[in-house]
């Protein structure tokens, strides 16, 4: 039996209750038992965490993480990935199907869930394949996948290639009440690209990923969401065109959600001048104008959520030239600090807004029982030192992947503790 846990001296931040003040939080029997309990309500033998100077927030929820197991364990396993998530303050992550075999069957969902239970890291939720074999032709058995526990469907990291298939799936999923995630990109227009297409790619002679490849896909996605009244989430997005499209349809009342990755909020395409594969991420680091627009869109909720964009790839795969290296990034452990550095230190947002985009809002998008410190809700809590500056040292990552465009950079905001179901699973 887990001991009750009292977190005191911290500042409670919970966007779901608009809570942003000093207070005590009592966790017991795996749930939030009380906010500001009286001394007599605190049970005997209660463990105590002193959160002086820290923020106490609902655990982060990541809408799309590649965990590469089964099939690519050299990149990441469910064990290493779910613990990297904890170190990044995530208590729930959605694992997409970048595996071999892909997650398009009841048994495959079960495999991931069992491995995740054994790993005792962050909670792992399965994003099932939208198409059978992730081949982009026929719908996978979405109803049965849903019964097995899949919380969403996607062909990520690829876009759903067929417009008709996406339309059918959006219609079909209405009865399952599960969202579809689309990674927006027109493959034909992005083929062979390694970086943002712009002035920098022109000078470097590197093949570009044009913004139109993303813009057109977002346009298709939002139009089909509107036409079918289906639940659609697009992301990660990275372009001004995508933001513009989302803003327009949202103002018309179309229900569609979107996410962006923290590195796309902080870094721009000039980083590629070093030619290092650690800057080869997807969506690519765009030009400064896109980055600024994206930050504003996260602020004004055109972009609902921040997702880590974790795409682990082994060292040997990343040691190649830019054409041969895959897109890859280890970002679970830097996501919050990257977002805080890009959005809070710059004065664009405050902490409660950031916690909303990283926890409360993503939980709502999927319908997870998470993203809140509400009484009786799962005791998934992250404790952050908002002022701690730290240097990104990839060799210290818990993730198997050490490739990151942020290596060596100074970030602010450090995860001190991560608590899952009332159990302290990570401390810095």
């Amino acid at each position: 039996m887990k001991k009750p846990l009292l977190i005191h001296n911290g500042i409670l931040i919970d966007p779901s209750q608009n809570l942003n003040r000093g207070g005590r939080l009592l966790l017991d029997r795996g749930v939030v038992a009380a906010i500001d309990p009286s001394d007599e309500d605190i049970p005997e033998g209660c463990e105590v965490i002193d959160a002086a100077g820290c923020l106490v927030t609902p655990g982060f929820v990541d809408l799309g993480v590649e965990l590469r197991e089964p099939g690519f364990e050299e990149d990441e396993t469910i064990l290493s990935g779910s613990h990297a998530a904890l170190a990044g303050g995530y208590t729930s992550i959605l694992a997409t199907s970048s595996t071999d075999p892909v997650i398009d069957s009841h048994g495959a969902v079960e495999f991931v869930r069992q491995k995740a239970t054994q790993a005792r890291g962050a909670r792992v939720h399965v994003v099932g394949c939208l198409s059978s074999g992730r081949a982009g032709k026929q719908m996978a058995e979405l109803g049965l996948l849903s019964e097995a526990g899949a919380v969403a469907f996607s062909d990520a990291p690829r876009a759903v290639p067929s417009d008709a298939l996406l339309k059918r799936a959006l219609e079909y999923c209405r009865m399952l009440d599960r969202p579809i995630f689309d990674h927006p990109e027109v493959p034909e227009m992005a083929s062979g690209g390694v970086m943002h297409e712009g002035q920098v790619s022109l000078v470097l002679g590197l093949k570009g990923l044009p913004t139109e490849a993303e813009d057109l896909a977002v346009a298709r996605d939002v139009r089909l969401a509107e036409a079918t009244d289906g639940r659609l989430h697009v992301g990660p997005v990275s372009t001004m065109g995508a933001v513009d499209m989302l803003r327009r349809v949202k103002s018309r009342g179309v229900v569609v959600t979107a996410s962006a990755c923290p590195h796309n909020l902080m870094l721009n395409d000039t980083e590629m001048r070093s030619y290092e594969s650690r800057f080869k991420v997807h969506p690519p680091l765009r030009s400064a104008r896109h980055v600024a627009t994206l930050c504003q869109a996260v602020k004004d909720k055109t972009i609902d959520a921040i997702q880590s964009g974790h795409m682990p790839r082994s060292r040997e795969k990343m040691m190649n030239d830019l054409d041969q290296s895959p897109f890859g990034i280890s970002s679970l452990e830097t996501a919050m600090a990257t977002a805080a550095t890009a959005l809070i230190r710059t004065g664009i947002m405050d902490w409660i807004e950031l916690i909303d985009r990283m926890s409360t809002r993503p939980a709502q998008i999927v319908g997870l029982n998470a993203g809140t410190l509400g009484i009786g809700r799962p005791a998934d809590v992250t404790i952050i030192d908002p002022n701690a500056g730290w240097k990104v040292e990839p060799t210290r990552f818990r993730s198997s992947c050490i490739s990151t465009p942020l290596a060596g950079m100074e970030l602010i905001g450090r995860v001190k503790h991560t608590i899952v179901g009332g159990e302290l699973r990570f401390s810095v």
Partner: protein
Amino acid sequence: MSVPDLTSYVDRWDRRHLLDLESLTADEITTLLDVAQLLKDATEGCRRKLSLLSGKTCANLFFENSTRTRNSFSLAAKRLGADTVEFGSSGSSTAKGETFADTAKTIEAMGVDWVVTRHSTPGTPNLLARELGCCVLNAGDGPHEHPTQGLLDLLTIRQHRGTLEGLTVALVGDIAHSRTARSNIWGLKKLGAHVIVCGPPTLVSPRWKELGFEVAHHLDAILPRCDVLNLLRIQFERQNARPFPSVHEYAALYAMNATRMRQAKPNILIMAPGPINRGVEITPEVADGPHSVILEQVTNGIAVRMSALYLLSAADDRYAADKKRN
């Protein structure tokens, strides 16, 4: 002719790698050209051998096919008394799955002083320069740069006109996929020439304008202003989808032919980096005509490569001496 005194030039040069022209200063480019000219003269037009670099070894590490550049570098090294060793990608370890960096490190461990590298991916020479202890020369990295090609074009123009300052130079054709263009533009700009990039919009991005170059799509409109035309080869091998309707149409719009020559300045220089597609970018009567300096470019290639090998080596010797002292 005796061995020239290059001391004053060596003092002005401190780079151990030649990766691009974009990052060089006008002074550095001028130094490379001056030394190239001196070495060309001292070797009687790149034909005689000096022993400036004897005991050193130059490795040609080409991951992409090449005949002229590879042989030009080999000859440049040999003319200065260095040994050369050849590696190709087909049949080598990269074909067996080794990364290019590991292949390069293996070759360096055999004790070479320069690695001359060509690769289909931009930036690979930069990665090698970071990984290896020896000098690295870029002999073409995909569509990015080909600095010695840029230098030989500059040298050729300078020999004919004395200076680059104030000249109007048009690069015509497949700018999008051309490393020759990406080296030429920087070199020309730094030395004071007015640069026009000319070709169909699918091969000439309007973004070049933001970088300070003139963008043109109609050769006939700019031709009367040009002092030099550099006719770039259409790189069919790098194009996924054909950027113009047909070769026939391309040639009609951009090929330099006898009719167009009549619109040109009387002393125009016609250049081409080769290999040339006769009938596509240039017709035979122009390629072989009195304005063509295409074969001079080839000879100057050896001169600028001698210059680059020499200057990098001198900087490397100094670097090694400093390291030893500390």
